[in-house]
């Protein structure tokens, strides 16, 4: 059975291996270059967003811009290709071309036949995804050190081990779609749609709830708050603060009792603590402090003073996933996708083993209305 699986899977395996080798070559060559640039620049000595000269940052950022936009998305496509080209045809092609009638009547139960095929192709799929993800993660390591945004959805899904979970899941979706639809092309299309839908749902509605978020209080300052002009005066707003390698859910301005102050209260506080800004001195209506063109230094000084004055009553409450939750979240997401894959595979094996609900391919035609042909051709 192992030989049979290998013989049918051989071409795809060789093509995949060749593609993976080419990919690895590209990643290693350009990745070494990227590391060289990183080590030569000052980037390694300054943390993200601060302490680096602007020119240093932009010079480093200009390196490998095209590749850095391609390698990550390429990794995202790997599970999709596995699901569509390995998972979907595994059963659908046999059912579609009728060869299941040949192979299921050899001296091997169809359950064993299916389990061996799934095990071999599925494990290769996981290995390919893991290897590709490892290469990509390695390549991006200098950029990630610089960007410190490991929870950004595109970064989170293109690094680490989650690609293994995606690959297993896509493979199982393809397999199940093939068993239900019994045709290769519709099964591929269904795999494409279902996999992307599952990934979107997971990213937006499931991943944020997997682990309880942490909370932190931050002092108001230029990095997390701003003042804007309104028709009635000025008002205070919070901006998402940047915490290195953390995933910020929300940032809310609260008072010392952790309540969200009303607009009137903020107005009153601004009037009392920041009279110059509240009166609109030097602040054109409708613009934040940083955007004023005339005297930025004066404005910045006013703003900083205002913020430190306000800090006695107000602070910023940040809800976030700390960087220590990165690997637990990676493991959880991988585990959930793999568990879903196992459930789908189990259901498919059970369904195929049961042998019901299957119309024999030989007799889909309706009974003919014309009299039966009982004479051999002369």
């Amino acid at each position, binding site marked *: 059975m192992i*030989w049979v699986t290998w013989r049918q899977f051989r071409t795809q395996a060789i093509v995949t291996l060749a593609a993976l080798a080419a990919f690895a070559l590209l990643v290693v060559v350009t990745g070494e270059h990227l590391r060289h640039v990183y080590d030569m620049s000052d980037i390694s000595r300054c943390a993200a967003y601060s302490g680096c000269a602007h020119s240093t940052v932009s010079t480093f950022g200009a390196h490998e811009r095209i590749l850095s936009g391609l390698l990550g998305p390429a990794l995202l496509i790997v599970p999709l290709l596995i699901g569509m080209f390995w998972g979907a045809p595994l059963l659908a092609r046999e059912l579609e071309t009728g060869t299941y009638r040949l192979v299921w*009547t050899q001296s091997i*139960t169809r359950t064993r036949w299916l389990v061996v095929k799934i095990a071999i192709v599925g494990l290769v799929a996981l290995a390919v995804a893991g290897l590709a993800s490892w290469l990509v993660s390695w390549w991006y390591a200098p950029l990630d050190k610089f960007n410190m945004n490991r929870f950004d959805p595109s970064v989170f899904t293109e690094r680490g081990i989650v690609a293994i979970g995606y690959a297993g899941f896509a493979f199982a979706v393809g397999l199940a779609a093939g068993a239900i639809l019994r045709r290769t092309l519709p099964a591929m299309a269904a795999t494409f749609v279902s996999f992307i839908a599952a990934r979107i749902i997971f990213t937006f509605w499931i991943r944020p709830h997997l682990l309880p978020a942490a909370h932190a209080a931050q002092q108001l300052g230029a990095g997390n708050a701003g003042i804007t002009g309104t028709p009635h005066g000025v008002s205070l707003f919070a901006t998402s603060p940047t915490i290195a390698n953390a995933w910020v859910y929300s940032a809310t301005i609260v008072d010392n009792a952790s309540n969200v102050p009303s607009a009137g209260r903020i107005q009153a506080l601004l009037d009392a603590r920041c009279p110059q800004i509240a009166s609109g001195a030097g602040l054109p209506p409708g613009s934040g402090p940083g955007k004023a063109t005339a005297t930025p230094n004066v404005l910045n000084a006013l703003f900083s003073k205002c913020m430190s004055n306000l800090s006695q009553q107000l602070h910023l409450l940040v809800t976030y996933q700390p960087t220590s939750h990165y690997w637990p979240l990676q493991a959880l997401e991988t585990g959930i996708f793999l568990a879903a894959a196992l459930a789908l595979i189990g259901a498919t094996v059970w369904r195929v083993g049961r042998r019901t609900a299957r119309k024999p391919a030989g007799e889909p035609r309706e009974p003919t209305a014309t009299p039966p042909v*009982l004479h051999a051709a002369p």
Partner: protein
Amino acid sequence: MTAALATRGLGKRYTSRWALSNCTLEVPVGHVAGLVGPNGAGKSTLLQLAVGLIEPSAGSVAVLGEEVAATPAQLARVGFVAQDTPVYPSLSVADHLRLGAALNPGWDQALADARIARLGLDRAQRAGTLSGGQRAQLALTLAIAKLPELLVLDEPVASLDPLARREFLQGLMEFAAEHTVSVLLSSHLVADLERVCDYLILLAEGHVQLSGEVDELLTSHRRLSGPRRDKSRLPSSQQVIEETHTDRQSTLLIRTEEPIIDPSWTVEEVSLEDIVLAYMGRPADDIELARVGR
């Protein structure tokens, strides 16, 4: 002696339509049994039930005295050539033989090699490029080299030209003669079966209309023609299968175990095809009565 195929109240339903219903039959071992019936009669359904590709919706089916396709050992006892003889298009002839060897513990490599050599098939040729006849022969080789005790063939010659058809049936007969094997093959052509079968099962509209040994069927059926007469005035031992009447004359196809002694009848022997056609023309309520044998 166990039956090659025994079914009891066997039925298979696809959504709302019963492809096969209330099918009870027993094919003894050692026969080359033909399953005949019009397209859509349920032949494929019955055969796929017999090899375990599908499960019954009602009743039971046993092959060689065992539950169907339950274990690898049971699967090894039954060879199957499916309708349209599917093969893997991208695999070569040799690959198919290797597949057969890998999946069947009782595989007879020498037999397979000899057959492929005699057929003149190129071992390196991809199965997808074989002609219909060659493909059928390859499928047959796979089915017989596993040395089954029962060989089931679903319309194996339906899509073959007359020459390929004859060669295929010849190959099948050679194997059946050299090995102790029961054969069950279906066709919608009586002529195909007449040449090779010694047992016949007639299936129409999902029911078994007739089953029995061919010799027995041929000796027990006669065509009577003579002056017009109503069938109620026949001896009770004579069962009318088909009747046609003109103003003066009656022609009856009857089944009887007794000799026919009425001098007013002209008695003729009938061909298997006549019998099959007569039974197929019968209304459905007579079906139960028409079953030949015990």
